């Protein structure tokens, strides 16, 4: 998914960071539709999408020295669309979790009418955290890896991280080559299903496809900020 940004994009970004209204309008025109589709497919409502994107575009406009353009954080190591989608998804997950916490507080208050529900809320609102999504991806993936057999994890690393051939695995284990191939494919299928199940367990409203999950990991791995 990720690649170096083109020279044209670099120039456009520079203008956006400097507050050029035309460049900012072009940025919005180019990416608003794709981001709307991505957030909707991940489970955000139409209202949430509109609010998130309105905030996102507003944050791309530089304020004073205290509040530079959000685009200053873009490292250029992945696509701009992938990066914007990751920022927006991160914010959306924060928003949904806050809503869930508020809902739980309200339920507690209804159960105990004499108790002020706002006493359960933090003293100050938590600022948007860039690591919300990283923690979610990491925890889900760690849980899925932990459910894999030691043999599966080691063989996956040998083949896909250290570039051993399946024939070399055959020689090590005394298996038939087709068994190695099936074993690795099944291990990957289990990682996929366990990871997505872990995601659902943590944030049931989040609709991430496996490709989405992998893309988000790649965006962070190559250098999100």
């Amino acid at each position, binding site marked *: 998914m990720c690649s170096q940004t083109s020279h044209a994009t670099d120039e456009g970004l520079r203008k956006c960071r400097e507050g050029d209204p035309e460049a900012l309008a072009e940025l919005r025109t180019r990416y608003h539709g794709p981001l709307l589709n991505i957030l909707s497919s991940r489970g955000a409502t139409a209202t949430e999408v509109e609010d998130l994107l309105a905030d996102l575009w507003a944050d791309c406009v530089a304020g004073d020295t205290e509040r530079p353009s959000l685009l200053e954080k873009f490292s250029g190591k992945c696509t701009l669309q992938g990066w914007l989608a990751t920022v927006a998804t991160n914010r959306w997950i924060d928003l949904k979790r806050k809503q869930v916490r508020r809902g739980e507080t309200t339920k507690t208050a209804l159960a105990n009418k004499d108790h002020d529900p706002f006493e359960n809320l933090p003293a100050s609102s938590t600022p948007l955290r860039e690591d919300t999504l990283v923690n979610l991806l990491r925890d889900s993936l*760690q849980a899925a890896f932990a459910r894999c057999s030691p043999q599966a*994890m*080691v063989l996956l*690393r*040998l083949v896909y991280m250290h*570039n051993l051939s399946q024939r070399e695995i055959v020689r*090590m284990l005394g298996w038939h080559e087709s068994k190695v191939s099936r074993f690795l494919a099944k291990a990957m299928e289990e990682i996929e299903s366990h990871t997505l199940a872990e995601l659902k367990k943590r944030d049931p409203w989040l609709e991430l496809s496996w490709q989405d999950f*992998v893309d988000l990991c790649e965006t962070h*791995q190559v250098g999100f900020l």
Partner: protein
Amino acid sequence: MADTFEILAKFLEKFDEDVEGREMQEPTEEAKGKLQRLARGNLSDSEQSAVFSELNRNPQWIAWLAQEVKALRNA
């Protein structure tokens, strides 16, 4: 699939808080002997199972095993 596992594993390497310093550790002498036998296909099923558990607990040793296997390519 190759790319997918690599992306996931590298993501965890980058963001797992418990991995610092792992790459510096070499297998013990006893473990090296077992890994060399594994590389040559000389471990029984039960011995393989024990070694895989040990490798999974010490993932930094997997690179050492991979080097052993690669060294056999020209043997």
